[in-house]
Every structure is written in structure tokens, then in C-alpha cells.
């Protein structure tokens, strides 16, 4: 029997003898759990915030490229409310931050216009040894930071001398115009760019990315990492799409940002 197996079995054989501290909960994967620990953070508990939101009535023009302001604002504030509740939960636990946050939108059977926005993550507390001499993990408003970084990315970020400030989102719900009969006939059997469509998709993405930029600026962040751009139609049909930019704003915690030289491996899995 190996040393590890022996030690593990000894512990499992008499768990009641083991000294019991407060149990933590987390929604981290095993990899993430271990890496967050190695970065110097202890998981405190699973935190969750949920907001059930009535999405308001939106007037639409059939043949115009336009942002649907009511829907954009709903998608932003629903998520924000869910994140605020999660952050509040984390504050109560005395956390320094929340890692591995996932934002989901669910449709339950309440009705067509009602969505549940859910933010779920793991509240963590920093060890004195995390991040060298850096102590000030909370945000400027003295609230726990939030981050959608996976455990792996979080580990690498801290090692590189940066700290997350907060999760930032930029949402834009956009209606791409339907093509009018004349356009359809004019381009029949031709290989051409559908300019109206291109322009619409362009504008929508730019608006979403512009908003995430503004949100990061408000947090006085140096930059945004792990930005993802999602495109969801939810239940609105093919011409109405939500463009969602989501990322983690970061700030430096020391002057130098060199990491140990990574070893090169050839992954055989």
C-alpha cells in the first residue's frame, strides 16, 4: 500500500476523531479548489444571488436596425441585481472576494417575459501569504471582489501580480432589420454582402464592448481579462439577439509582473 493510500484510509476510518472546523461549501471543480488554495485563498462557502425579473414591453420596428433599449437595460440590471445579492451574501461571510462566478439566465414557467438571473460563485478569504505584501483585496467600496475567472486563471493572475477588482458586463439587445422585398429581389442569385446585416451585427457588438469598457473604467481598473462575447437569442426569434460582453477587471498589486518560467509539456491525454 502506498503512503498516501495508507494515510487517507487511516483518516477515513475514524472521521469522528478528526477535529472539525466549520465546513465550507464551494462550487469549484477539484482542479480549481486546489489551485485557489495554492494561490493563498481559503474557500468560505457557496454564495448565490438570484433575481426574477419582469422584462418590460418593447416597441419594435420591423425593418430597422436598432438597439432595443428596454431589453438591453433589463438584461443588464437583472444580472447586476443578482450579482449584488451574491456580493451581499459574501460580505456577510466576511469574504475578501468571490471566484468562479457564473451568470445564468433561466426561463421558468412564470410567463414569457419573466427571467431568472442567477449569479453563483465561491466566496474566498485571503491568507496572509497570498499575493506577497498585498492586503487590500476588497474593492474601493470595501466590498468583496467578484471574478468570473476559473480557478486556473485566478491562480495565474495572482502569480503574475494582479488582483481582480470586479466582474464587468456590457449587454446590448439588438434588432437586425428584416430585409425588404426589393432588397431580396435585388440580390437574388448573387454572392453579395448583406450590408444591413453586417452593419447591425457590428453596431451591436461595438455597443456591448463599449459598455464593458465604461464599467471597467468606473472601477478604476487597469484592464479587463477573460472577456467573452456571447450571443444569445433567448426567446426573441432570429432577428433579435443579445450581445453580452463579460469579463473581469483587474488592477496591479505590485510593480513587477514576471512569473516563473513555465515548463513546456506535450499533453498526451
Amino acid at each position, binding site marked *: 500500500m502506498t503512503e498516501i493510500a495508507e494515510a487517507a484510509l487511516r483518516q477515513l476510518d475514524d472521521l469522528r476523531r478528526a477535529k472539525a472546523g466549520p465546513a465550507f461549501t464551494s462550487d469549484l471543480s477539484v482542479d480549481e479548489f486546489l489551485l485557489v488554495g495554492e494561490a493563498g485563498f481559503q474557500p468560505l462557502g457557496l454564495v448565490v444571488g438570484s433575481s426574477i425579473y419582469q422584462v418590460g*414591453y418593447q416597441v419594435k420596428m420591423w425593418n430597422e436596425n436598432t438597439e432595443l433599449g428596454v431589453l438591453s437595460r433589463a438584461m443588464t440590471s437583472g444580472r447586476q441585481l443578482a450579482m449584488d445579492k451574491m456580493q451581499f451574501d459574501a460580505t456577510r461571510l466576511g469574504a475578501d472576494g468571490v471566484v468562479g462566478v457564473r451568470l445564468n439566465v433561466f426561463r421558468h414557467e412564470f410567463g414569457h417575459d419573466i427571467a431568472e438571473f442567477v449569479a453563483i460563485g465561491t466566496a474566498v478569504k485571503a491568507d496572509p501569504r497570498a499575493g506577497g505584501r498585498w492586503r487590500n483585496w476588497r474593492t474601493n467600496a470595501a466590498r468583496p471582489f467578484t471574478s468570473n475567472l476559473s480557478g486556473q486563471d485566478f491562480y495565474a493572475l495572482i502569480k503574475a501580480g494582479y488582483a481582480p477588482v470586479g466582474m464587468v458586463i456590457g449587454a446590448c439587445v439588438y434588432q437586425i432589420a428584416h430585409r425588404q422585398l426589393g432588397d431580396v429581389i435585388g440580390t437574388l442569385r448573387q454572392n453579395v454582402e448583406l450590408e444591413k446585416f453586417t452593419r447591425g451585427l457590428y453596431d451591436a457588438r461595438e455597443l456591448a464592448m463599449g459598455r464593458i469598457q465604461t464599467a471597467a473604467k468606473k472601477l478604476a481598473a487597469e484592464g479587463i481579462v477573460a472577456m467573452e462575447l456571447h450571443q444569445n437569442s433567448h426567446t426573441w426569434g432570429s432577428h433579435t439577439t443579445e450581445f453580452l460582453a463579460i469579463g473581469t477587471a483587474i488592477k496591479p498589486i505590485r510593480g513587477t509582473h514576471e512569473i516563473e518560467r513555465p515548463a513546456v509539456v506535450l499533453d498526451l491525454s
Partner: protein
Amino acid sequence: MSQVPQDLPSTARARLAEIKASGTWGSALSTAEFAAIRSVGFVPAGQAFGAAVFSIRNAGTYDCPTRYGRPAVHTAGSSSRSAANTFGPLVRALYQARQTAIDRMVAECVALDGHGVVGVRLDVEPFPAGGLEFRALGTAIKAPGGPPLRRPFTCERSGQDFAKLMLAGWAPVAIVVGISIGVRHVDDWTAFQASAAARGNAEVGGHTELANQTRRDATEQLRLHVRKHHGSGVVTREMELWFEDFECGTEQKGAKDQMAQATIVGTAITRFGPKQALSPPASSQLVLSLGDRDRP
């Protein structure tokens, strides 16, 4: 060597006896998982399975918790008053069904002289003839030469995850579940906010309160379950939540109550060694992988 327990069905006993007689094990492990559990001193003992078909019904008559006064959320876990008790039996049945399936799987593991079961998949499926079938399927593993455990561990994580935990000084203890059912009377204001008549963007306060408290209570139930198993923490995957509405049962015609049910499943873990005290120290290293970028 342990005896094949008598309370298992005869076909299960026959299969277990055959595995023990032949020494040939079956497993659902991938090659990489197999290599991973071997690297921490364990070998597969055989496939372990447990199932239980339960009739899960709402027990007793339902009585709306809020006939008068301000509506509040009642969760089966946290509150012991009035309506909460109505859902108590339902929550207990949901726990018991899962636990029975897991216990039967553990009984097979014991029969195979295993120390624990890894890679456990927990499924719930409606059985066509009625009731819900709760299933647990995993691979029993053992450390050859190790003394049998009073109760084998169960782990819903893969063999690789099991090995990673072990190398870092953590051992899985048991699969733990947090279940909560919350109810809240749908008051007029909430009903209006959730109806098509409300035209602006707004949070539906009542439903939000219900969802938050039920999710939080499920997390708390999970933590209590971990304590019961003497674990010091838990790693989990996902939380499920669904809603259902039904007649309130008061004099008001058409009044509704909203129910939310949240379920979260995870693996309780315990620390068996000071970090990195075991050889070799299992500390992470930064690597640049030369594999395909989008391969997991």
C-alpha cells in the same frame, strides 16, 4: 474477506460472487482514470450499482402559510412552523431515495472488498409505470492490503480528480446532497408584477425572495449534510432549481402559492495530511501545453 450481503437482489449477489471468484473486475473507468487511481495506490474492485424506485408525492394536505399579513418564504429546511412541515415529508423522501440508492451501491462495494466508489453518477428518472427511479453507478476501488473501512467513501468525481485530491492531502468522504423546498403565497402585488399588465422593466420581488431563500437554504442543508459526515468541506458542481404553482387553498378564489425546489449535489472531503507533507510534494507548476488549444 467480507460476505456478500443478503439484502441485495440475488442477481446482484451472483454477479458479485463471480467477480470475487474470478478476480476479473469490470469498471467504467477510462484508461486515464485507471492510471490516475493506480498512481495513488488504488486498484479497481468492480462496478458498483444501486437503485431505488420511490413514489414521491406531496404528503398530507397543504395549508397556505400566509392567509393573512405579509407573505413570507417558508423553506422546509429552516422553518419548523406551519406550512414548512407540509413539505418536510417530501424533502425527507427525496433525501431517503437518494441515500437508499447510494447505500445499496456501497453494499456492493463492501461485497467487493472495496474501500470506496469513485466516478459515481447519480440519476433520477421517472419510471414509466409510476414513481421515480434513483440510481447510483460507480466503480469500486480498493487499496490492496489496506484494512476495510467501517464505511467506504463515495465520490461523484472522476478518477483523475480523486487522484489530484489525494496527492494534495484531501480524501473524499461521501456524496452529500442539499435539498430545499420553499413556498410563498403569491400576493396581489407579486401577481401584478409578474403579469403582462406590468409593462416596465422591474424585478419581481416576491419570486426573487423565494428563489434566493430556497437556494440559500439548499446550500445550508448541504453544509449540514457535510458536517453529519464529518467532512471539512465540499466540492460541488451545479444547483438545480425549478418552480411550480398550485392552489393556495384559502377562501380567495384563484389564489396561488408558488413553490421552488432546489437541489445541489457534491462530494464531502476531509484533510488527511498537512499540505505537501507527503512525498512527493504535489505542488502546481506552470506549464505551456503543446497540445491542441481547444482540447480539454
